[in-house]
């Protein structure tokens, strides 16, 4: 008898605790909690317009991927700004699974959200859902998505200027008519734009592209190390590698170090984050230049743009966040170890003047 009862009791305990577990989490509403390192909000002075004057506003954030240092900080900035505005933000994270992002977006449309922010995504996958959302009267703001609906607000970091800024440094560092490598993938709007700047730079500088490798996964940095190592085994005579996305750049740095080529092969990346700064300033790092926006400031600015659009106060259909070139020398000389110090040293990264109003408590510094 007791041998029978014991597992039964354990089982019912397990089912009950599973229910209690999910019950508790409802009250602690993880989605609206500010991320670590988020800035404190500056107080708003103006009176809130509708719909913000009428209580909590429901917004969905549908992300292609929230993984990786850059996207985590972006998400933290967005959550912090949403909290400051009194927005109930539900985050859908497809974990780089594009099919899931399509169904996530569909769920977000049906969730009763007043606005949807779409962070990255394949246009062919999400365009029909975006059109559907617009048709239902939901305000849609996209970040780095190359989409066609005229009612949608486009936000993006200025990718062309970002690639150009890094490639200018690269041209100065390695000179003309030399051999170079390339780590990138096609099919992502931001990366495609950086790609077209790269192609022009190749011709303009007379560079020979010895290899092109790269893939995007849920652990992009790690998964690119073997690709870059293999390419460098074959082509150890390149002087510079352009990897225009920080996760790709991290993988490239490891690949270069694996092959012990860091004194000969320099890495030119893109984007910037705490981990990227650590990576660039580490002793013997081949990563000599990057260009970026502050991911946390961008995430916050996208949420502010959405708030303005909801209030009917946004008078444009696209908002661009300019990028700033950052070199290893600059970081080392100014002893910069993290984003906070970089923001102070480079005020251009601060987007506090972008998409703001007197009723918006701004989380940017």
């Amino acid at each position, binding site marked *: 008898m007791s041998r029978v009862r014991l597992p039964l009791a354990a089982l019912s305990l397990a089912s009950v605790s599973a229910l209690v577990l999910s019950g508790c989490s409802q009250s602690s509403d993880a989605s609206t909690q500010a991320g670590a390192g988020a800035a404190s909000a500056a107080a708003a002075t103006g009176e809130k317009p509708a719909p913000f004057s009428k209580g909590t506003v429901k917004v969905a954030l549908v992300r292609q991927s929230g993984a990786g240092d850059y996207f985590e900080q972006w998400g933290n900035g967005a959550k912090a700004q949403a909290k400051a505005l009194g927005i109930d933000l539900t985050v859908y994270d497809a974990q780089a699974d594009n099919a899931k992002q399509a169904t996530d977006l569909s*769920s977000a449309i049906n969730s*009763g959200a007043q606005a949807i922010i779409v962070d990255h995504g394949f246009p062919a996958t999400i365009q029909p859902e975006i059109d559907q959302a617009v048709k239902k009267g939901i305000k849609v703001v996209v970040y780095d998505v190359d989409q066609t609906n005229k009612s949608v607000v486009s936000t993006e970091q200025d990718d062309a200027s970002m690639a150009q800024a890094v490639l200018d440094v690269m041209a100065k560092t390695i000179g003309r008519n030399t051999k170079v490598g390339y780590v990138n993938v096609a099919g992502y709007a931001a990366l495609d734009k950086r790609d077209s700047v790269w192609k022009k730079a190749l011709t303009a500088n007379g560079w020979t592209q010895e290899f092109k490798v790269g893939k*995007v996964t849920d652990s992009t940095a790690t998964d690119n190390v073997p690709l870059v190592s293999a390419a460098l085994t074959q082509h150890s005579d390149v002087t510079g590698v352009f990897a225009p996305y920080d996760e790709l750049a991290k993988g490239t740095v490891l690949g270069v170090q694996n092959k012990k080529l860091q004194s000969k092969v320099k890495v030119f990346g893109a984007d910037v984050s705490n981990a990227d700064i650590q990576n660039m300033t580490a002793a013997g790092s081949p990563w000599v230049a990057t260009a970026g926006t502050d991911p946390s400031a961008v995430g916050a600015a996208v949420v502010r743009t959405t708030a303005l659009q909801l209030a009917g106060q946004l008078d444009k259909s696209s908002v661009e966040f300019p990028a700033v070139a950052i070199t290893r020398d600059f970081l080392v000389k100014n002893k910069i170890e993290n984003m906070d110090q970089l923001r102070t040293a480079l005020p251009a990264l601060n987007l506090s003047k972008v998409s703001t109003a007197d009723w918006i408590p701004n989380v940017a510094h």
Partner: protein
Amino acid sequence: MTTTQSTEVPAAAAIRPATTTAVRVQNAVIKYGFILVTIALFLYFALSEGTFRESATLLDTLRYVSVAAILGLGVTLTMAVGGMDMSVGAVAGLGVSVAAQTMVVHNQVGTVAVLAVLAAGAVAGLLNALLIVVLRIPDMLATLGVMFVIQGGKLILVDGQSVTPGMTMSDGGTAPGKFTAGFLRIDRGTVLGIPVSVLIFGALTVAAWVFLARTRWGRVLYAIGANAEAARLAGIRVGAYRALAYVISGVLASVGGLILASRIGQGDVSAGTSQLLEAVAVALVGTSVLGRGRPNVWGTALGAVLIGIITTGLTIKGLPYYTQDVVEGAVLILALVFSFTLSKRRTA
């Protein structure tokens, strides 16, 4: 009534002392416990979250799990013969690449793409069967090897790129085709308000149930899974049936690939990889349904629905994906307790 019962119960207990209340409750828990957990979770989300109750959300949930469910049906068949197909996610991903390559690069119509994808699935299944039946490699290891070969092979097929309409191809030309409207209806279209992919999921579930539970072939598959040597001595061509299970699994996985391709609407080199573990999980969860303790089709379908309810419900509640992984894992372990620990105790 009450008096009659009270006199009968002690009498019955005297004849069969083992049938105590505790044992009866335990049997009921083993048999219906998992269905009850599913219903309880459903009610909990439906009562606490208004959006969860809406038919659009429920259909989205089914649409989301349809791929893992269809892949899970294939895994169920291979589990029935005592094996396991680890290549289903890769085969679905291969389907996405083949569909994109056929329509975008070779400019073919949707029907050709569908046939090409199904053929690719059958070939992958045959490859598994060859390794397992002819070369006698253990199921899980053989299909794991095939998984890697396919994941790499599909990238060779598409030149390492996600195939997009209008892209520049390796020979410098521009890709001539696009995903046809008809092909896109596989996942994006509806019939009587129900997404086509959900209807495919339903139809394949019924077909797989008829095959596995209502035909001689299905009983033979289970007989092989229970004791391959006994089945062989009974005159069953064990190798042929095991090969059949893997080929069907490959074709089912490619159907999952068709739905993914239609959902994504372009090539995607990473498609399908996330589906393997979910497919295996739903098939394993399925073993616990109705206290069967063995792979079964309705169990797999219900397992998929349960995973869908958890994912959708917890997302609406605002929990991040890693919390969902923990809850899904806990549910899987709970199901395995039903399947192995409790069922074995009952039969012992």
